[in-house]
């Protein structure tokens, strides 16, 4: 029994995919603009600052790959992309919460920029995005009706 092409679930899945994908691709592209600056921002979180340059190198590209994958790849790969997206959201959530709890001054120092500071709403936003990502993982689960792969 096939579901109608415009079923609610189908629309929901598409909206979530496009929304999350767009968010991540844009975020990734913006970070690609100034990698050294981004590395400094990561280091300011005071969580294993030695890893900062590697994260700065890998994260924006991964965000773009995940975003594009979520839209364009076949089903099982989409689920993988959503899983990776959820994992990244979980990491962001941990980093932001950790910085808030420890009262780490993210934009401090004579050479830091006072950009958009993080706050409780950042945590809420990340939790919501994580939940949406997990929802997509669940929506993209392989069903018995998909026989092709």
């Amino acid at each position, binding site marked *: 029994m096939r579901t109608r092409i415009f079923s609610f679930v189908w629309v929901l899945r598409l909206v979530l995919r496009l929304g999350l994908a767009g968010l991540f691709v844009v975020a990734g592209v*913006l*970070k*690609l*603009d*100034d*990698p*050294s*600056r*981004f*590395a*400094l*921002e990561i*280091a300011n979180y005071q969580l294993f*600052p*030695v890893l*900062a*340059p*590697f994260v*700065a*190198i*890998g*994260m*924006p*590209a*991964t*965000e*773009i*790959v*995940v975003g594009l*994958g979520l839209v364009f790849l076949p089903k*099982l*790969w989409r*689920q*993988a*992309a959503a*899983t*990776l997206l959820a*994992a990244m959201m979980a990491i962001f959530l941990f980093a932001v919460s950790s910085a808030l709890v420890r009262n780490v001054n993210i934009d401090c*120092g*004579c*050479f*830091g*920029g*006072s*950009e*958009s500071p993080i706050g409780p709403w950042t945590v809420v936003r990340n939790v919501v995005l994580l939940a949406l990502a997990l929802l997509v993982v669940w929506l993209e689960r392989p069903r018995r009706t998909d026989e092709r792969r």
Partner: protein
Amino acid sequence: MRTFLLALLGAGSGLIVNTLRPDRVDWTVAIANATCNATQLTVPIETVPINRAAALCASSGVLIADARDAERFAQGHIAGAVHLPCSTPGALLDAVPRLLASVDLVLVYADTTDAARPVAEGLRNRNAMAGLRVAVLEGGFEAWARAGQACLSGPCPRCQDTDLGTSHAH
């Protein structure tokens, strides 16, 4: 599984892109900067007394940097000093390396010797590989002014020269 492969693809393409671009993150330098207990960085910052600073003042290759806030700088600063403001958007991060390009010694001063030290250390840590010498003015601006050395007032002229660019939107 697939998730891991995607992560690998992301990390890999990031690495390739980083290697190819001119403004790449040099992770060897970045690691040195991040680990504050590297042996080269435990040497204390040199303090320079007023009379020696006065002699250095005019030499090219020496940059005098004011670490106080903009108001104090405008009220009175060492002649020829550059202002290192704490509240400018991150564009200054780009301007500072450019200012430092032709400089061997940066003399940082604040109101007191100790106030300038963390700024001097920060400058040195960020430029460890460039072999830049950073020193602190003994006694700060107070001592300089009391000794009757050359002072100017007004906003930082060299800050206007350098193109500080636009702040980054993230």
